[in-house]
């Protein structure tokens, strides 16, 4: 069943004329049908034009077939909203309204997403609010009324060194009734500046979408560029990319495990993980000189080769890293007071997680068996699979446990890959990219599914380059996790998701 969509595989490109353009009713019905039968939305965006916008919807089929689907339609100044029936679409529809100035009729939660300027000329829907809908956080927040209800506003300036975001809690005593999160403070206009690309700067923009997911986003961009140019990265390059992706996952997961431990006030694991995270960042630096993997991935291959000396050194460091992290994390599991904090905190039910379309470790902790590395394999993961880890308790404990198990699987993976680095070149010469083409790349960053869609015009330039960071799917999950929880557990829930603000704000 393709639900009237063009089906294709991850990391491939096809002519834009192959994308079906059904009428509005067929389009929305097929999206609805696909979601009902278990498909999931990866990306849903518009390209503004004089009359309205062209909407593109990219969906992932149910696990097993490995296919993706794309369909599109032309709409005027408004289109019917499906958010009430399919909550996973709600943020995408608001984004379309904000970027393309076309209104999702009947949207139950019609608010700005990033308080950004539209991609075309015109006035946004929120121009009557102060700041013309362009000042982040200036909007009508949901309110609970009553004598005993109070509102707590946190951010955008926080006490810790974290990114800016605004949180509104509607509380009854210590209990949270509702949490609303406002973003947009980090909006840099990345998608806007990619229109007309690629340029020399495009690669660097990709590496800074979310600084801690440099490799994940760079991988997706490289996949798109390579398929549009009709070239392939060498097996050696693909292997090193896979190693870098897993190193990124390791460093961030270990940092998160330490941060979760620190938020419960349990210092030993927190301190050890802080240091060990640095060791894993240094392994990425071993590959390319940058602790965050900047400059490692380049369209056509990798920027720096991984020679035998580096591979041997990495193997040695992995061994010590594995021993140290195992000790540090075992301390955490053996402290009953920590377990008491983690269990039953911040529960997102499996049904809710499926409805809002969670991705990554947050989804897997709710028992959703989804992982791009297995469902839509790319790069080295087409040859070497990493087992998917799922949890079942849907709480902070499950998210912590999933992270720890993923750390172990990633360690095994890197260990194996470093031993068997394919020989051969590491760079393929880049060629100009194809005109009138569409390319979609999905990768599994450490936060979850990253989706990049490139649509080129007649001259081989980006008409639109759409980026979906996993945080875009998952922030609503955090909002739900706080329902009927203690407000004092918010930092812990927040850490267990650890979502990106700048990846969301673009």
């Amino acid at each position: 069943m393709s639900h009237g969509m063009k089906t294709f595989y991850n990391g491939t490109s096809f002519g834009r004329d192959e994308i079906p353009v059904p009428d509005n009713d067929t389009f929305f019905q097929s999206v609805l049908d696909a979601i009902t039968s278990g498909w999931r939305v990866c990306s849903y965006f518009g390209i503004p034009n004089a009359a309205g916008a062209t909407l593109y919807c990219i969906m992932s089929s149910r696990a097993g077939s490995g296919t993706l689907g794309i369909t599109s339609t032309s709409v005027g100044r408004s289109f019917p909203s499906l958010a009430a029936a399919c909550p996973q679409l709600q943020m995408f529809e608001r984004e379309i309204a904000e970027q393309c100035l076309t209104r999702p009729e009947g949207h139950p939660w019609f608010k700005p997403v990033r308080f950004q300027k539209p991609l075309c000329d015109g006035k946004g829907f929120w121009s009557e609010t102060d700041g013309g809908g362009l000042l982040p956080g200036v909007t009508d927040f949901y309110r609970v009324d009553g004598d005993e209800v109070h509102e707590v506003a946190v951010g955008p300036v926080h006490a810790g060194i974290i990114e800016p975001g605004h949180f509104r809690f509607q509380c009854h005593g210590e209990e949270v009734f509702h949490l609303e999160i406002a973003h947009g403070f980090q909006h840099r206009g990345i998608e806007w500046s990619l229109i007309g690309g690629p340029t020399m700067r495009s690669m660097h923009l990709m590496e800074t979408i979310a600084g801690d997911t440099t490799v994940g986003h760079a991988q997706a961009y490289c996949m798109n560029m390579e398929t549009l140019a009709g070239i392939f990265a060498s097996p050696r390059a693909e292997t090193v990319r896979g190693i870098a992706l897993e190193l990124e996952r390791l460093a961030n997961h270990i940092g998160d495990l330490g941060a979760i431990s620190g938020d419960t006030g349990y210092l030993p694991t927190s301190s050890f993980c802080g240091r060990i995270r640095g060791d894993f960042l240094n392994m990425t630096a071993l590959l390319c000189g940058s602790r965050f993997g900047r400059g490692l991935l380049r369209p056509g291959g990798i920027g720096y080769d991984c020679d035998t000396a580096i591979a041997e050194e990495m193997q040695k460091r992995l061994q010590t890293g594995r021993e140290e992290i195992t000790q540090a994390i075992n301390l955490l599991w053996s402290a009953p007071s920590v377990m008491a904090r983690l269990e039953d905190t911040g529960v997102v039910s499996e049904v809710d997680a499926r409805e809002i379309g969670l991705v990554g470790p947050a989804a897997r902790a709710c028992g959703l068996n989804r992982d791009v590395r297995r469902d839509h394999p790319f790069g080295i993961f087409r040859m070497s699979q990493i087992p998917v880890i799922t949890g079942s308790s849907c709480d902070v404990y499950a998210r912590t446990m999933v992270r720890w198990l993923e750390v172990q699987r990633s360690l095994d993976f890197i260990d194996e890959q470093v031993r068997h680095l394919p020989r051969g070149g590491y760079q393929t010469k880049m060629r100009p990219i194809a005109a009138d083409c569409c390319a979609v790349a999905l990768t599994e960053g450490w936060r979850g599914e990253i989706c990049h869609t490139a649509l080129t015009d007649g001259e081989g330039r980006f008409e639109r380059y759409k980026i979906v960071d996993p945080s875009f799917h998952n922030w609503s999950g955090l909002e739900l996790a706080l329902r009927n929880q203690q407000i004092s557990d918010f930092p812990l829930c927040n850490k267990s998701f650890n979502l990106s603000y700048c990846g969301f704000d673009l």
Partner: protein
Amino acid sequence: MANSIIHIFLALVMPPLLLGVIAKTKAAFAGRVGAPFLQPYYDILRLLHKGSVFSTTTTWIFRAGPIVTLATTAVAAMLIPFGAHPSPFSFQGDMILYAYLFALGRFFTMAAALDTGSSFEGMGSAREATYSCLAEPTLFFALITLSRLSGSYSLSPMLVNISFGVWLNNGAALLMLVGGMFIILLAENCRIPFDDPTTHLELTMIHEVMVLDHSGPALAIIHYAAALKLFVLGAFFVHLALPYATGNPYLDWGLFIISMLELAVVIGIVESVMARLRLIRIPQLLVAATILAAFSTLLVIR
């Protein structure tokens, strides 16, 4: 006279050292070198050299908060005997004054927090009020037990009276009292598992969130008063748990200082090996402390 001077000197100078020892212990458990022992002194000095910022929405209550807290804690420090030496001031019934001096200081801290009109500080005040209500009965049961054991209503005779002989006769009662008072010591001083004094997460704090708006010298006063409170309550606890007395006054002072440092190490260890409690669990532990203290009272009254 010499004892009084040493008493006042120790009360003035030693409290921040306890914080330094706790921090060093925690660092050792976490495999770090940690800040120097004297870091809390440097911090207080640094803050004293800074300017203050006062929100225009606050009134004199906000400024009075730190000063009243320090003053009440300092008076309490004069009432409590350190080690085997009686306190500089004592009178019949000073145990009631001792208990309510802390309440007065807490009242002003909470009023100053509410004065800012911030939702965080309101939450912190609500938490502090709730938990201190639950902590107060334990202290009173402890005082009743001690006055029953010593036949006095004054802190000095009550506490100096405790010796290994008293432990031999009332071991069970004192053991429960030590358990209850240790919980109260941690709760009143905002240590783990009740509160995390090092956290930066304003939504989880209890004490720290109430003083978020204070800066410069006012914050230095708050830090110093908090250290002094730990010292004063710690001195009370040390009397119960480690009632050493040799008869030689200078040796006794030395023993007292060592006992206080031991206590700081124990607090550091507790903070290192366990996580914070969930806030809704805190009342349960406080009630457990009250029950322990109540049973110790029952045992000595029977």
